[in-house]
């Protein structure tokens, strides 16, 4: 890798054959955070992209090693902050799996509903931000209007809007808010009536289509070899939905389709996410009226001790497969912990899919990869 002076030297001088090296980020409107892309250009055409990471590294994995099994869950909200609830769920599932904790049905149902709400909220934000990357500012506000309803629901029930920390090993922190079902139903009606708006403004727009169709094509083989998961891989036709392959909680009881597209371009990735929102609505509709009565948290010991061994669980976040890998020595804290974050693998294809395209295409490819930088860097 580079040391600091080499980076400066490397990026401030013209390369061979009229190459132009520009630094996109760490402060750049399109990178949505502190991602640093060193882009080598030939005119407008991209020759090479090199992502430089580390600007928001907080060593979360190391931090988690000093926290108990109850405490480390909340830190994972700070990784992929847009699907924090699902991250928390992954960690809780690992502890429940390792300690054989029985989770009440009510908790399972609520967890799934909240996961799907989180997924919709994340995709809504992505939709707005993606449209903004391509220069359309208005859809951002329309998407946020719907997202706001979800954050309100989260605020009512979980007490926070973004980093909820509502899940504890064995169930939930407290019971549902009495208004929960009513508000979720109101959200579903609102969402269904506003979906056409996104179609008019974004999906069917000729400029948007020409900006995304055939841009950043990722083949199924490449998707697999780069380790892409989630909507990015599914847009290339790779079936990789953890909710279908390894169903957790009550995903095996609900009916939903795994959204698959075959084109593998930016528009396919866009369509996968838009359709996924509808599938999430479908899941919520099936569950919202059938939440069983009962406890919201199972019986757990006061001090959690994972038995000696190695544990791995995976969940499907809004961005793909999120894996938690814990090595336990039998103590109250993990011996070693590793998170498999979807964003890191998805970012790694950026160079592959953007070489030969233009700067404008980079925005489309980067937008549809749906990068959350704290998730990549941890």
């Amino acid at each position, binding site marked *: 890798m580079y040391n600091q002076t080499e980076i400066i030297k490397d990026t401030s001088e013209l390369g061979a054959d009229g190459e132009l090296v520009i630094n996109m980020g760490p402060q750049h409107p399109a990178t949505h955070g502190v991602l640093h892309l060193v882009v080598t250009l030939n005119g407008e055409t991209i020759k090479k992209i090199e992502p430089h990471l580390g600007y928001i590294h907080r060593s979360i994995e190391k931090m988690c090693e000093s*926290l108990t099994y*109850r*405490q*480390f869950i*909340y*830190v994972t909200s700070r990784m992929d902050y847009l699907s924090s609830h699902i991250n928390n769920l992954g960690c809780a599932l690992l502890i429940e799996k390792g300690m054989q904790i029985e989770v009440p049905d009510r908790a399972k149902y609520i967890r799934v509903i909240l996961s799907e709400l989180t997924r919709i909220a994340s995709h809504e934000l992505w939709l707005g931000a993606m449209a903004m990357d391509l220069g359309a500012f*208005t859809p951002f506000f329309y998407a946020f*209007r719907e997202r*706001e309803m979800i954050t*309100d629901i989260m*605020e*009512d*029930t*979980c*007490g*926070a809007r973004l*980093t909820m*920390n509502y899940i*504890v090993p064995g169930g939930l*922190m*407290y019971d549902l*808010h009495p208004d929960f079902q009513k508000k979720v139903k109101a959200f579903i009606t609102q969402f269904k009536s506003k979906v056409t*708006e996104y179609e*008019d*403004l974004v999906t*069917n*727009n*000729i*400029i948007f289509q020409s900006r995304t169709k055939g841009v950043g094509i990722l083949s199924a083989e490449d998707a697999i070899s780069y380790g892409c998961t989630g909507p990015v891989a599914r847009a290339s036709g790779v079936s990789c939905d953890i909710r279908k392959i390894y169903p957790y909680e009550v995903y095996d009881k609900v009916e939903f389709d795994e959204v698959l597209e075959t084109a593998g371009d930016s528009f396919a990735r866009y369509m996968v996410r838009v359709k996924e929102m509808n599938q999430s609505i479908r899941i919520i509709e099936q569950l919202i009226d059938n939440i069983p009565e009962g406890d919201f948290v199972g019986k757990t010991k006061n001090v959690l001790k994972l038995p000696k061994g190695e544990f791995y669980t995976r969940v499907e976040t809004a961005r793909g497969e999120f894996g938690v890998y814990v090595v336990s020595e039998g103590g109250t804290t993990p011996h070693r912990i590793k998170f498999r974050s979807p964003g890191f693998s998805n970012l790694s294809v950026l160079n592959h899919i953007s070489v030969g395209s233009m700067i404008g295409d980079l925005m489309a490819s980067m937008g549809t990869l749906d990068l959350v930088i704290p998730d990549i860097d941890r």
Partner: protein
Amino acid sequence: MFLKEYITDVVTGVISLLKGMRKTGYYFTHPKEIITEQYPDNRATLLMSDRFKGEVVMPHDANNEHTCTGCTACELACPNGTIKVVTKFETSPEGKKKKAIDALVYRLELCTMCNLCIVACPSDAIKMAPNFEHSVFDRTKLTKVLNQPGSKIRKGIE
């Protein structure tokens, strides 16, 4: 054939653009759809969710009594050292020595509002309050002592 394709291209493109303009035009002409909240002005009517995790507080009743026993469960549960329980020994009228809190120091600037301390508390002595306007000019003001001066533990709480 080429000409036909060309013309359909232009027409469908223009139609898709007009559809988008109709949508934005609708919102432009319907100010009722505006969703903005006038935040600092609507402070009086602002409704915060009762579960909103804004800061940790310790409720006191009319006799200036709280229910904190000083068991340090919250201190142990806290992932980042936000809470520090300082205990002292009080002599009751019968001459028995009893452990009580001197100060429950809460450092708001470290708190991540994870709610673990509230769940851990066996006597419901602390709870989350929906206050969110925490800005101060001096960092030391964020270090708070939750129990009020001269407060005592309520009778019957062990």
